[in-house]
């Protein structure tokens, strides 16, 4: 008889543990919804952001040699990230302190990080080389002052009586050296308006 009830405490202990575990598991499945998050705080207007119209600027300011001169119809920018978003862009890029390229585009971003400058233009970009009057048209145009090279997409280039088109291209600043990639096409150039 004594032997028969010897296992009873063990059975009770195991059953209690089972109930406990089952309770925890159920709690996980049917967890209470998280308390509602407080409504997002309305952001205070960023005092470092600004909009402008009919603005022109040079880089570097009040320093030689000049890297670029940008005129824009309107735009916006921030003092914290050093980026300006531009609309209706007219720009002159300088090489060795002398005007090398005159570029126009619908939109653009001008960014300055330390001494490096980057100009990314898009939409009906037209660049005219000012010495030989070589003409480059593209949908996207990126220029990095550190590399002194141009990268363009959906490009059409007219030079020395020939017209070249490609998906993308990489150019020297004076447009005399270029590497074209993707769907390259060359033909006799029509007269450039």
């Amino acid at each position, binding site marked *: 008889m004594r032997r028969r009830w010897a296992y009873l405490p063990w059975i009770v202990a195991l059953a209690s543990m089972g109930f406990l575990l089952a309770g925890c598991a159920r709690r996980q499945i049917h967890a209470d919804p998280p308390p509602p998050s407080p409504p997002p705080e309305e952001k205070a207007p960023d005092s470092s952001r600004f909009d402008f119209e009919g603005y022109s600027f040079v880089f570097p300011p009040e320093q030689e040699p000049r890297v670029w001169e940008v005129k824009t119809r309107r735009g916006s920018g921030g003092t914290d990230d050093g980026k300006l978003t531009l609309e209706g862009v007219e720009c002159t890029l300088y090489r060795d302190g002398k005007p090398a390229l005159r570029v126009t585009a619908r939109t653009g971003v001008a960014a300055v990080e330390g001494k490096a400058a980057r100009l990314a233009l898009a939409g009906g970009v037209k660049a005219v080389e000012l010495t030989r009057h070589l003409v480059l048209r593209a949908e996207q145009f990126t220029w990095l002052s550190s590399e002194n090279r141009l990268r363009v997409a959906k490009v059409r280039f007219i030079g*020395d009586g*020939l017209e*070249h088109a490609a998906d993308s291209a990489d150019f020297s600043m004076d447009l005399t*050296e270029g590497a074209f*990639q993707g769907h390259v096409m060359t033909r006799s150039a029509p007269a450039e308006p």
Partner: protein
Amino acid sequence: MRRLLYSVLAMCALLTAGAGLFADGPTALPKFEITADIMRLDLKKTPRSLVYERNVVYTSPLYQTRITCNRLETNATSTNAISAVTATGNVVFAMTGEDEKGKPTYRVNGAAPLLTYSMQNGEPVIRLVKQNDIQPSLIITDLASKAQTDLTGSGDVMEYNLQTQTLEVKKVKMASEGSGK
């Protein structure tokens, strides 16, 4: 006095017409279009250099000329004038010969390791050249009778003048050179 003036004017007109006829025409290749995957342009080099690579196709409406190859290089003698192209790597060439009325009469199909297309004495000339023991091949098809003339292996250099529509096949042996039309 009036007669002298007329003759001076006539001479000026003749000179102008002559200059117009011979200014760029004889040295520049006929109107063309080139497509490729890659192209490198160097306008600083003299002569100006354009190098096309991968899936290169050169087409010209003159005699429906078509050249396909892996690499094509252009040479320019002057601004606005491409005077020659050099094609290498699986070069295939085709053109259509015409009679005086412009009616297509025969078709020329060729292949060679090296092809040059240039202006020689003001006439466009295509040369198919042997390289690394691979001889050029050329098949001429008469469009009316469909008769074919296969000139494959008959020479080391095949020179086809598009203006005069004449073919010259040359065999290069050591330093000497034999030729036949």
